[in-house]
């Protein structure tokens, strides 16, 4: 028999999975019919989260608000580029937000990322099985990230959310640069091992 705690976790995962599938369907509606209501639903969900991310990355309120607009505008105009076999909608939103952050906050070029998308565009159309696998992987990563040991999770959070460079992370946590790198690699292989069940 499952313990109460275990049951709760499983229910949460089901809810998460359901919202992931719902987001994919909203993207489909945007691409198929330019559905404004579907877009609005995604904005209401992701807009405030994108803003939270930008503020943690060091953006002022007004800049963070502008970035929310930019990211969601890109989601609308490039909706046809979303590939459900590449992962959850949230993963795609993250990559758009990351690119906007590179261009606006870091003042560098996100062009290499766009060109790489073009490589994917040239590859084959997604089949249903690949889409399911991708959803399972996104879901698995979310669970595994939450489960990482604190010292590894912290480094991931510094890099992916706070947008700190590795030397900034080292300085902030008073760690040698080599330790930051090795914890990053450790976190990566831990996630990877957790995902082997899906491959």
């Amino acid at each position: 028999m499952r313990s109460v705690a275990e049951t709760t976790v499983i229910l949460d995962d089901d809810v998460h999975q359901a919202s992931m599938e719902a987001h994919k369907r909203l993207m489909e509606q945007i691409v198929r019919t330019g559905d404004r209501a579907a877009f609005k639903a995604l904005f209401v969900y992701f807009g405030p989260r994108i803003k939270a991310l930008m503020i943690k990355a060091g953006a002022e309120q007004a800049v963070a608000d502008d970035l929310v607009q930019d990211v969601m505008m890109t989601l609308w105009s490039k909706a046809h580029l979303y590939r459900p076999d590449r992962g959850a909608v949230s993963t795609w939103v993250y990559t758009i937000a990351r690119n906007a952050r590179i261009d606006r906050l870091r003042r560098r070029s996100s062009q290499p990322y766009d060109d790489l998308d073009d490589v994917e565009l040239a590859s084959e159309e997604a089949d249903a099985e690949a889409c399911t696998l991708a959803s399972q992987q996104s879901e698995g990563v979310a669970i595994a990230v939450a489960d990482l040991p604190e010292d590894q999770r912290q480094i991931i959070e510094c890099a992916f959310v706070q947008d700190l460079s590795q030397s900034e992370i080292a300085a902030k946590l008073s760690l040698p640069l080599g330790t930051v790198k090795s914890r990053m690699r450790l976190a990566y292989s831990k996630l990877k091992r957790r995902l082997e069940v899906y491959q």
Partner: protein
Amino acid sequence: MTVRHHLDKNTLMRFASGDLDDAFSVVVASHLAMCEECRNELRMAEDIGGSLIESEEPAELAPGALERIMSSIDVAEAPLQRRESLARDVFADVPLPLRRYVGNRLDEIAWKTAAPGVKRKRIEVDGSSSLYLLHIGPNKVVPEHGHGGAEMTLILSGSYQDALGRFQPGDIADLDEHIEHQPRVEPDAPCICLVATETQTRFKGFFSRLLQPLVGI
């Protein structure tokens, strides 16, 4: 293409979180364009970002944010239909992320001689790291060198060997600053590679010092 030498996992995570500068991003993106295995790994790394954005505590948007975006999408065109991919030139042998800098074909690159048997094409990018293509003649040995900083070398054509093994098209040498190596180009063909270096590479030895100002890396 069988790629044997891949990105370091730390590099992959840095690329996923947007931490590499322009020179290194171009090299990493070019390897990814040539390597499906690393592209799959990148997706996993980007899923980390997706999961973190989902678990963010929502922030309060500026008043009128929803109205603002809805009127922006009204003015904008309907979502674009699938645009034609840049990847359509079947003769292109330059990886896609590099094409905007040097064109589509390796045999159309305007090389400059840097040293006997070594030609170079410098690529202008923002930031303090440098990016360039090298064309190194058959059998040529690149002087043994450690690195003042990180260095990445992606093979585009031909091959070389060093202590780390044989490097062929698609392979990337993703080296930490402490590793020394001495690549030797294989006899059958020149080796063309894309290189990003963090700071001035410090060549060792007499010939090396002779070569350094010429190679200018």
